[in-house]
């Protein structure tokens, strides 16, 4: 899929980002005349399109990613001219550019100080609050970032982006319970997001296999992980990540069937019996191999898979195949 300037560039590979940032001169030139306020120029130049400023924002992000600071600054100037500098979103982008250009920690501290000043004037400036938290995280001050984020979520509990960032921060510190709670909050806000179900399944699997996990919680986490991955597949039946996770979890369950004993509490999920687990494993394996086969053959309708993900799936299947053949010998 060719990268486009209409989508935010956070998911792009480095090659795609470079390609986008090289479009900078043409995009900037096209919109050169719209910032003039004389009516004569306004009549002659192209009228604003709906996507134009979204493209500018994404171009700015791509340019920063590839290090093209000159073009990024020019994008920023255009945005400032069109939307005044009191606009919260533009303020956040400006801060982002300053952070990217900062050479050392002292300059980053200065930017942080500026954010604090802006927030003391107006503490409902959400983009700046989020920018500040991101800066704290990139400076390595994770506990400060977490506490600021918790404060933000106290008065804005319906922001799914903030909850997922919190889950990520907790995961970085190994606090699995809290990460699970935060990801569940994301799910409450977006109940049909299959990628979030898969993410929660992954976190549960990590929590179950973490060293030091107690015996009872292992079973609880693994059970719920199976269910989360199944739900994500139910919502999107071509989801590679869901099948991958399901295969990992069912492999582990089948290997350790001895541990899956003991009653579960009232109202908790029960571990599926061995037969169901085996069938799930088979389903995952067959679907994964189908995805690998068809996506490498580049059949129509199967080309959307990310190369790295398909590669990882292939490795998983081949490891299992070699392990099985090793046992048979």
């Amino acid at each position: 899929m060719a990268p486009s300037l209409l989508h935010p560039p956070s998911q792009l590979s480095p090659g795609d980002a470079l390609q986008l940032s090289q479009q900078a001169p043409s995009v900037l030139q096209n919109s050169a005349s719209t910032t003039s306020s004389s009516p004569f120029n306004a009549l002659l130049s192209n009228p604003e399109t709906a996507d134009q400023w979204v493209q500018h924002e994404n171009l700015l992000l791509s340019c920063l990613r590839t290090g093209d600071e000159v073009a990024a600054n020019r994008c920023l100037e255009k945005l400032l001219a069109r939307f005044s500098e009191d606009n919260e979103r533009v303020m956040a982008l400006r801060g982002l550019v300053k952070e990217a250009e900062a050479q050392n920690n002292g300059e980053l501290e200065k930017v942080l100080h500026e954010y604090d000043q802006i927030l003391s004037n107006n503490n409902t400036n959400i983009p700046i609050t989020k920018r500040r938290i991101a800066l704290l995280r990139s400076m390595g001050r994770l506990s400060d970032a977490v506490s600021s984020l918790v404060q933000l979520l106290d008065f804005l509990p319906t922001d799914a982006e903030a909850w997922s960032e919190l889950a990520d921060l907790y995961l970085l510190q190994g606090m699995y319970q809290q990460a699970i709670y935060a990801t569940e909050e994301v799910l409450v806000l977006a109940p049909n997001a299959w990628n979030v179900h898969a993410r929660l399944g992954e976190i549960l699997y990590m929590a179950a296999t973490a060293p030091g996990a107690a015996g009872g919680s292992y079973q609880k986490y693994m059970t719920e992980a199976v269910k989360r991955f199944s739900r994500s597949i139910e919502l999107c039946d071509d989801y590679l990540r869901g099948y991958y996770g399901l295969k990992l979890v069912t492999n582990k369950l089948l290997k350790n069937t001895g541990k899956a004993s003991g009653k579960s509490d009232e109202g908790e999920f029960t571990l599926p019996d061995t037969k169901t687990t085996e069938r799930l494993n088979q389903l995952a394996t067959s679907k994964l191999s189908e995805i690998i086969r068809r996506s490498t053959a580049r059949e129509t309708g199967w080309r959307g898979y990310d190369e790295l993900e398909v590669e990882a799936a292939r490795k998983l299947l081949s490891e299992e195949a070699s392990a099985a053949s090793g046992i048979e010998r």
Partner: protein
Amino acid sequence: MAQVPVQTIHRDPQLFYWILFPITLVMILTGVLRHYATVLMATAPKKLDQKTIREQRSLLHGIGVRSNAHVLSTSSFNARRDALTTAYESGAYLKDPERRGQAPPNPMSDPSSMDGMMGMMKNQMAMIIPNTLIMSWINAFFSGYVIMKLPFPLTIKFKSMLQAGVATKDMDPRWMSSISWYFLCFFGLQSVFNFLLGNDNAASQMAQQMNQMGPQQAQMFGPGVDPDKQFLGEAENLAVLEHYSVLDNVEERLLSNAKL
């Protein structure tokens, strides 16, 4: 029985150029002008402070948990339910905890809701004034004669409104003066405005709103709503919710669907 004689009146063919066309043009132009005037006069949405945002969003969060509770496992849901119910009942999210028992502020006297009402009044004014001016202009310049004949019959009562300048006893009510053309245009130019100004324009919305003056729904966070009662109501809703999880039996569902 004698046939009622069909009344024919010979009309000047230049009527079209001198009357219908100017009135239509003036109405379209004032509609466009009204649209741009409304856009320019529109006030920015009110900035809320942190406490107000907190109050509103916490309620939305509770509603979200209730509607999407099926995503959670029973234990997670119970934990959240207990936390939220305790917070709601103790008024932890209220903006003004001291005013708990009192009635909500009267929308007339509450300064925070004034801005919203002023905005509505301004829109009404922008609607009323041009229409009044056009009507008086038409009555001044285009009265005293009839210009068109409707293809369907009407009752006599319409004569007083639509044949305003021509006081005759026997003339068929189907004959209309220019003021009636004004009324026809008023209701009929909506599609022209949609074409010229896009769907969401202020010129046609007024007429739509006038048609839709049905029962007005109570707003969730508008003036005159008591947040404490909302919180308590939400706490009760959460308490009576029977929880089921979408994750129960998800494996069987998945396996049976996959076979198909």
